[in-house]
């Protein structure tokens, strides 16, 4: 079976329980087990080839340009871990079937479990470190789900989050490490990397890569100082703990160290970092385990300790140590899985995992007792169980290790670790199973059914068998894996008896010491309880809480919703960046001569400056500010005229008045005055920023006006061809409707959308809270009488038709003289507005038969159709044409297709302006204004008529 298929099978297995989420525990367990079994079978089929020294591979290109490929390999190491993952996985699946209660959502559980299994298998079968990274992070995610499976337990959630954070951190570091490693080796394929030991160890990036990768491995394998997360992950259901923390997840770190052992080990850095970490972890965790009350917690720290042991062995960097490490991986998986399951059974049956509340279970749960004792004794390293064998091998290697010139330090520490190990193992047996029977168990304990104890029993049998017959039971597996780890053929001769040697003596010391320590257990517990030990969880919580708090504070303070801050940052950024860009470039100084200054423009300039200053000074008096806006607008328009831009002036003037009308309409409902809110300091800072921006922008404008174009501008072509190709004398208008008609098309769309937005907003406002507020509106200021003065009505009545004529004139001549659709639209709108102002909106609206929505739609469509029309001539969108038409009896006159476009502009502008004003007026009407039936309030002739 292809390695890729083997790696995928668990994921397929994950789909089934997910899909059959409601069909109960049996179906979920069976489907998961089937997938696992098939994968295991497939893996085992490769045993002969691997034993022959082959590496089975499968390669699929995934993302070749990154070097991320779906390459899989099975070698001895992969085989060892694969068998552990799938074999123990199978047992866990069976165990969990009986462990989970009917209420637990089994489908979800098995989905998560199989996802995790797939991720784990993916790690060990990857032949590409980027692929490995993906699976690596997947184990973090799926274990997050598994640990948090019981959502109702806060410990579960916190444990899950802690596990994810810590292992996630390691995973992230590892990303960097792996990328560096791959870049040194020139490939991310493990096969290639394993062949580049020389390049890697001589690279200056070796140490960073090593540190980053080890950070990943250590966090995953819960090595000191990252050991704290593992016990908190024990909130997971016991099958999860048994699986994750005996055979799989925590061993992923070990796997990685073993996988990269050929290229990373053998250096002093490796030795001191890895071996020392392992050693400390082994001793420290074992010490802590002695005092744990929760069975699973005890087992968790023992796991940490044993992981430290294996890490230390790998850290030694010798081939023999690697062999021992592989052997202990096998042994630890068997006895620790059995122990976790035992603890689960006790929890399940007795209702508690607290050692203080247990004891005397020997007779009540004989089967469990046997299984637990066998496994625990193996953990303690008691012969002839398998734990003893690998512990001897460990001690043997420890005696060879020299730490900073000190030949006995490592051995002594290792013995101490073993001693603690004996102590907590025996404590497990002694305080749970021995002693008097109690009568205050939460449940009445009894042995569970076969389904629950069969899996640990099988493991216990393995513990014994490997211990007794290591040569036939484990030799092949250790040989294959150790050969793969070291990269050279290893032939370990595992045996129970090595003769009387130093390790045996150290074992004896450990055993005796352990028993002695157990005897002192109660005073020790009391002593330890008296000392306030730093609680890792509290520290972690404090750190994350502080981080969350700091992030919250920072975010809230930085992004505090202040518009002023956002815009000040904006202005400063612009000015500083612009200044920097200018000062770092070449500037030749002013080259263009200045236009002479005439007195009248000077007066206009003074008016503009003074009005602007007053505007800022008086901006709190809002109506006055609007009057000043009017003056500024007037001056700007006039300067456009003076500087040869009549079209601009026309547009600016007419836009101006509509804007003022709009602002006045809005101001009717807004406060009429702005209160002073900013402190003097803020006003000063704002003024500084404003001055800086003004100076910068003014200087930029000056620099531009005083320099010439570096290249001849494209507008020269436009001036030359406006009449010839565009048929118009007004070059600006030809640009607008022809050269750049597409811009104008967009521009009227903007206007139309603006009006639609205003309309939609008005609808929403009137329907919501604003509508209620408006219905109860009380006008703040005293109002004068005479809403619709007679004189205004009469004059606007006359102005309206005249303005329509003027609008038409401006529209028609736009192509050749200043004007055009836009100005015409505004002129007509303004005329209508004046009519509305005179006689009231409602009165005027009743006489207005055109729907403004339709005007906007028609305008955009008219402009669009003018553009599309060109398609029928095979020309691009908006291609224009023009010609001269001669009607009988009349002079020739010009017709340009661009006029159709200009008509669209006209309609759209008018629709938009009127729809916007309409919307604002509706707000006013909501505020209780009445609708008049007559155009003017005072009309003597009306009374005379009556």
């Amino acid at each position: 079976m292809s390695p890729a298929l083997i790696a995928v099978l668990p994921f397929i297995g994950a789909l089934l329980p997910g899909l059959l989420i409601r069909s109960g525990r049996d179906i979920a367990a069976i489907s998961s087990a089937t997938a696992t079994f098939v994968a295991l079978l497939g893996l085992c089929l490769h045993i002969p080839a691997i034993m022959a020294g082959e590496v089975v591979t499968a390669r699929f290109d995934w993302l070749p340009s990154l070097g991320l490929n779906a390459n899989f390999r099975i070698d001895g190491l992969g085989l060892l871990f694969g068998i552990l993952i799938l074999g123990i996985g199978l047992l866990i699946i069976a165990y969990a079937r009986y462990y989970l209660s009917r209420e637990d959502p089994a489908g979800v559980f098995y989905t998560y479990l199989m996802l995790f299994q797939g991720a784990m298998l993916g790690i060990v079968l990857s032949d590409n470190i980027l692929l490995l990274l993906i699976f690596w992070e997947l184990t973090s995610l799926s274990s997050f789900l598994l640990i948090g499976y019981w959502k109702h337990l806060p410990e579960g959630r916190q444990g899950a989050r802690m596990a994810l954070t810590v292992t996630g951190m390691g995973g992230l570091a590892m990303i960097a490490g792996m990328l560096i490693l791959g870049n040194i080796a020139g490939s991310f394929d493990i096969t290639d990397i394993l062949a580049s030991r020389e390049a890697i160890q001589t690279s200056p990036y070796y140490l960073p890569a090593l540190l980053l990768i080890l950070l990943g491995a250590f966090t995953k394998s819960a090595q000191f100082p990252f050991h704290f997360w593992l016990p908190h992950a024990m909130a997971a259901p016991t099958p999860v703990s048994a699986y994750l923390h005996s055979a799989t997840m925590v061993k992923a770190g070990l796997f990685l160290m073993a996988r990269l052992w050929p290229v990373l080990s053998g250096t002093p850095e490796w030795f001191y970092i890895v071996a020392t970490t392992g050693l400390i972890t082994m001793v420290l965790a074992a010490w802590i385990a002695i005092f744990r009350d929760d069975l699973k917690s005890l087992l968790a720290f023992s796991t940490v300790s044993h992981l430290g042991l294996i890490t230390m062995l790998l850290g030694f960097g010798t081939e023999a140590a690697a062999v021992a490490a592989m052997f202990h991986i096998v042994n630890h998986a068997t006895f620790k899985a059995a122990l976790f399951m035992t603890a689960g059974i006790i929890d399940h049956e007795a209702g508690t995992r607290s050692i203080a509340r247990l004891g005397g279970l020997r007779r009540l749960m004989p089967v469990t007792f046997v299984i637990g004792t066998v496994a625990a004794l193996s953990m303690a390293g008691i012969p002839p169980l398998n734990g003893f064998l690998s512990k001897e091998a460990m001690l043997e290697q420890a005696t060879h290790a020299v730490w900073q010139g000190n030949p006995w330090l490592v051995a002594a520490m290792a013995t101490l670790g073993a001693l603690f190990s004996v102590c907590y193992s025996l404590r497990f047996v002694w305080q749970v199973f021995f002693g008097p029977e109690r009568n205050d168990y939460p449940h009445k304990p009894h042995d569970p059914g076969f389904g629950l104890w069969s899996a640990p029993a099988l493991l216990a049998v393995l513990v014994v068998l490997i211990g007794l017959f290591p040569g036939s039971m484990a030799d092949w597996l250790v040989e294959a894996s150790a050969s793969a780890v070291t990269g050279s053929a290893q032939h370990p001769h595992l045996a129970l008896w090595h003769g009387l040697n130093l390790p045996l003596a150290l074992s004896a010391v450990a055993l005796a010491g352990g028993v002695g320590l157990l005897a002192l257990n109660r005073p020790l517990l009391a002593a330890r309880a008296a000392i306030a030990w730093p609680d890792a969880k509290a520290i972690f919580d404090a750190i994350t809480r502080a981080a969350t708090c700091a992030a919250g504070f920072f975010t809230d303070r930085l992004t505090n919703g202040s518009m002023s801050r956002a815009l000040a940052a904006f202005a400063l950024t612009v000015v500083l960046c612009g200044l920097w860009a200018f000062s770092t470039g070449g500037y030749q100084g002013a080259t263009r001569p200045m236009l002479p200054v005439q007195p009248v423009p000077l007066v206009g300039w003074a008016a503009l400056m003074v009005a602007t200053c007053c505007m800022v000074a008086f901006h709190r008096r809002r109506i006055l500010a609007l009057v000043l806006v009017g003056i500024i607008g007037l001056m700007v328009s006039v300067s456009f005229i003076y500087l040869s831009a009549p079209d601009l002036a026309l547009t600016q003037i007419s836009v101006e008045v509509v804007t003022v009308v709009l602002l006045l309409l809005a101001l009717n409902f807004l406060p009429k005055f702005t209160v002073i809110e900013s402190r003097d300091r803020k006003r000063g800072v704002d003024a500084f920023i404003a001055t800086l921006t003004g100076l910068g922008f003014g200087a930029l404008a000056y620099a531009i006006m005083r320099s010439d174009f570096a290249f001849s501008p494209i507008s020269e072509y436009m001036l030359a061809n406006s009449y010839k190709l565009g048929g118009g004398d007004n070059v600006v208008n030809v640009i607008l409707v022809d050269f750049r008609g597409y811009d104008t098309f967009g521009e009227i769309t903007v206007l139309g959308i603006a009006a639609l937005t205003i309309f939609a907003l008005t609808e929403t406002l009137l329907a919501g809270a604003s509508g209620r507020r408006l219905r109860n509106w009380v006008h703040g200021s005293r109002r004068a009488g005479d809403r619709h003065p007679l004189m205004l009505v009469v004059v606007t009545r006359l102005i309206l038709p005249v303005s329509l004529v003027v609008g038409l004139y401006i529209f028609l001549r736009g192509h050749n003289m200043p004007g055009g659709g836009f100005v015409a639209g505004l002129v007509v709108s303004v005329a209508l507005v004046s009519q509305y102002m005179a006689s009231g909106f409602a009165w005027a609206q009743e006489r207005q038969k055109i729907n403004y929505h339709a005007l906007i739609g028609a305008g955009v469509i008219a402009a669009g159709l003018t553009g599309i029309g060109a398609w029928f001539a095979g020309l691009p969108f908006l291609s224009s044409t023009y010609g001269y038409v001669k009607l009988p009896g009349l002079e020739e006159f010009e017709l340009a297709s661009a006029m159709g476009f200009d008509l669209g502009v006209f309609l759209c502008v008018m629709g938009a302006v009127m729809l916007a004003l309409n919307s604002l007026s509706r707000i006013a009407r909501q505020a209780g204004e009445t609708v008049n039936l007559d155009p003017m309030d005072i009309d003597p002739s009306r009374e005379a008529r009556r």
Partner: protein
Amino acid sequence: MIAEIVVSVLLVLGGFFGLVGSYGLVKLPDPMTRLHAPTKSATLGVGAVLIASLIWFPARHGVLTWHELLITLFLFLTAPVTGYFIAKAHMHLGWSRDELPRPAPGKDWATFCDPDKASLVDRRAGD
């Protein structure tokens, strides 16, 4: 030549009245009297200039344009209304009804009457 003289006279006249109008804006003591200055003098000032332009173009360039006439008409049409409104605004802001003569016994000026007084038969919005 005659045209030139006429135009020059008109320009000087226009400039003079324009200036006087705006000067009145500064010099006259209270807002109500200030209102008089610009609405008339400026109107005539601009009127004179516009007429000067009307004469000048055919005389100088041989093109008769009537646009100035339109502007003049437009100004004469609108200036009274703006004066009327500014006066009303000023009455509203600065004068009480007792300072003014009554239009007729028991009657009041429109600016001072009930702001919500309906014209004759008003409808409530939305009815």
